């Protein structure tokens, strides 16, 4: 899905020398198909993917023991109450019929209502989507800045950072996000009382409150991303800086900073973008745990409670939303890679 990338100095076809030291041609010159075709292609692929994901999630939740009627009524309702409620909720029908009914509604843009709260699923998703997007967006930004920065510093050896990227990578890989989350709460919320332990404040309510409510969860979620990006940046940069065209550039007296930022970094940028895309999807999974640790009203905590309660329409709605997120991220990465390296636009 993500375009193939090159990370080392490719001699290219420029007759004046290495193409990476020259201005790149506009992306559209390399496109074999218009942009609309790319988007259409991705959307066409997304439709069967969405159906597959929704069918699988429906099947898996249906296979787990119990059902929504007993979750709603508890253990002390009269026996006929369970049957009545199952009938009302349509749970008496075979799973394929229930799924067909849901799919028919979903294709008309209606994701149904929560079996528990009675609220429209789309309304519940819209309420909680911003929290998850801010969480993942913030974590991606922090991962990008800190991860790439650390990777570059470790290569250049400035400030004595040396192999710090490797150390951070080990720490980031070894510690799960939820554990880091718990420790951050213990230090910064409980002991120091600098930041809140739980909850989310919308930016409309209070901008500082919003930032404060996101600092710890974003930090917990981004540590793994920082580790991955630092490691990838360091390795990619070392590859490029040891390549022939960089030796040529140095021989021609081009300053080291210019080589690093104008040429080498431009060369590894598509690789970083690809890693960042993968991290976005990884963070989507991590957000489920982090949202629970920080009691954030996002989609991750919503799908956990919905699955436990057998609230199938809600599980379906969030699963579809997650799938769309993954499709959009892949599409965005395609665009970014294409812009950074037009020769990769050969779909």
């Amino acid at each position, binding site marked *: 899905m993500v375009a193939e990338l090159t990370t080392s100095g490719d001699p290219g076809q420029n007759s004046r020398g290495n193409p990476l030291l020259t201005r790149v041609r506009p992306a559209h010159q390399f496109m074999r198909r218009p942009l609309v075709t790319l988007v259409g292609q991705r959307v066409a692929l997304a439709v069967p993917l969405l159906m597959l994901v929704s069918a699988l999630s429906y099947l898996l939740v249906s296979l*787990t*023991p*119990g*059902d*929504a009627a*007993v*979750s*709603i*009524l*508890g*253990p*002390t*309702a*009269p*026996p006929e*109450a*369970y049957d*009545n*409620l199952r009938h*009302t909720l349509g749970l008496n029908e075979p799973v394929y019929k229930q799924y067909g009914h849901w799919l028919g509604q979903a294709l008309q843009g209606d994701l149904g209502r*929560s079996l*528990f*709260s*009675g*609220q429209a699923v789309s309304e*519940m998703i819209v*309420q*909680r989507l911003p929290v998850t997007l801010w969480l993942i967006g913030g974590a991606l930004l922090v991962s990008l800045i800190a991860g790439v920065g650390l990777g570059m510093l470790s290569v250049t050896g400035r400030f004595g950072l040396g192999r710090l990227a490797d150390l951070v990578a080990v720490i980031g890989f070894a510690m799960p996000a939820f554990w880091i989350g*718990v420790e951050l*709460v*213990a230090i910064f*919320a*409980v002991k120091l*009382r*600098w*930041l*809140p*332990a*739980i*909850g*989310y*404040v919308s930016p409309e*309510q*209070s901008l*500082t*409150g919003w*930032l*404060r*409510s996101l*600092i710890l969860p974003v930090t917990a979620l981004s540590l793994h991303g920082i580790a991955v990006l630092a490691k990838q940046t360091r390795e990619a940069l070392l590859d490029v800086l040891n390549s022939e065209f960089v030796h040529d550039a140095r021989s021609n007296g081009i300053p080291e900073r210019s080589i690093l930022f104008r040429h080498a970094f431009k060369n590894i940028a598509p690789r970083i973008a690809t890693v960042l895309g993968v991290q976005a999807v990884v963070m989507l999974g991590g957000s489920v745990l982090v949202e*629970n*640790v*920080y*009691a954030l*009203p996002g989609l991750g*905590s919503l799908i956990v*409670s919905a699955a*436990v*309660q*057998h609230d199938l329409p809600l599980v379906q709605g969030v699963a579809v939303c997650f799938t769309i997120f993954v499709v959009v991220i892949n599409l965005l990465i395609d665009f970014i890679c294409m812009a950074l390296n037009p020769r990769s636009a050969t779909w």
Partner: protein
Amino acid sequence: MRNAQRSTRLRASGEKPRWLRAAAGALAAVTGIAVLTACGGGSTDASSGSAGKTELRIGLQTAGTSLNPAVNGSGSSTQISALTNAAITHIQPDGSVSPGLATSWHYVGSGNTQFQFTLRQDAKFSDGSPVTSQAVKGWLEYFAKAGGSFAKSIPISSIDTTDDHTVVLHLSSPNPIVPYLLSEVFNIGFVASPAAVADPASLATNPAGAGPYQVVPSESVANDHYTFVPNKHYYDQSKIKYNKVTVKIIPQASTMLAALQSNQLDVASGDVSTAEAASSAGFNVVSGPFGWAGILIIDRSGTTSPALADVRVRQALNYAVDRKAIASGVLGKGAIPTSQPITTDGYDPSYDDYYSYDPDKAKALLSAAGYGNGFSLNVICPVYYGAAGCPLTEAVAQDLSKVGVKLTVKNNATQSEHVKLLVGGTYPAAGFLQNPNVPMFQLYGFDFAPKAVLNHPGWNDPTLDKLWQDGSAAADPAPYWKQMTARVVTEAYQLPIASTVAHWYVAKHVTGVKFSPASSSPLPTEWSPN
């Protein structure tokens, strides 16, 4: 030389030296962090570190199904509903029933089949409409049809409204506890306005009751947090103690404690795993009895497990468990070993130690019943009950194995899985945690009536049936409930282990958090700034 050249270049370009830029950046970062960590964002900010006494912040582990009392069960949802919906009668923290929306009530004639109550004349719903007998009738009729777990808690056959404020309930069978059932404990008393009842979907997000507060839908997210502000139509404004109440749903006990410790909550529901830490952190820990935990013997007729039909076997099971060790080892501090199912009105302390731990006596009873070599029993247990669920069942299994009874325990991860198997008729026994607010009248309906939901084999005991029938129609039923407790214990119809304990963590600036077995959910409407 190089540095000198660079300095000359910087001076020429007006660019600041690198160290100066770095220092400025560091200063800006430190200032930003200081600002972020210092300012709380105001009293509406969930992260506020200095909320005044005019805001009450509550942490609950669950929120119930929705804000509509007609589809909710008991527990945390009661605390939320009590904020927005005044009940017809009011349950006091000590368990006594006092006036709510109704100022007086009585049974008409004998037999407990007609119940009349009179509504106060100054009560209004949050939408401004008056609380009338017609509104109450509409609510009660809707409640019965809504299909919630309490839909059939009062067997109403018809409702008369003799004037604007008098309601008469005609019952299809005798029921002596209607005043208790109309309180906050069972949801049916949480009347909503006629306009909301006409649009039941709206009740999920705006319950439109006649309580002291009303929900702010734009500042609430279902199952995560809710915001309430005073209801200007509430009939007794002096009882509104806070300008704002927020409820945050936090399922994890450790996260709940962290939220308290970081001053984001004033009152929170706790559990045994964090009670000691909460106390050490300086919070008042309010503890009290919370039902009973043990093994529910379902197949007393011996349909799937013939041994359970013999009273000697059931008594042997009761003698074989070391309640004291299990209570302290599994349930923790505060759990009281007991041999009786705890009810609000049938509790008799003399039956707590009726079956003292005596494995030899258990073996003798099993031998006398023809099970000297023991027998096997399939049991389910609820993982989600914490220590009172599967750990307790496993501890019981360990004790029973010493007298030859082998329990095969199936762990159920979710409530829906557990309840489905519980009422499904395939398991003869189950790990169980009984709510504390259950009167004997209702316990009989759940566990022992011939058509009870937890009596799927259809077993019955004529002696117990008669006691229940006589108590149901009696003007003073209390003695019958005690006799029913005696019958249940001596016939060993259940295998109770201990009464469990609930914990509430309360900041020093809040007072009035109290509860009792009959009123097991402390109502926020009773709390006030200290």
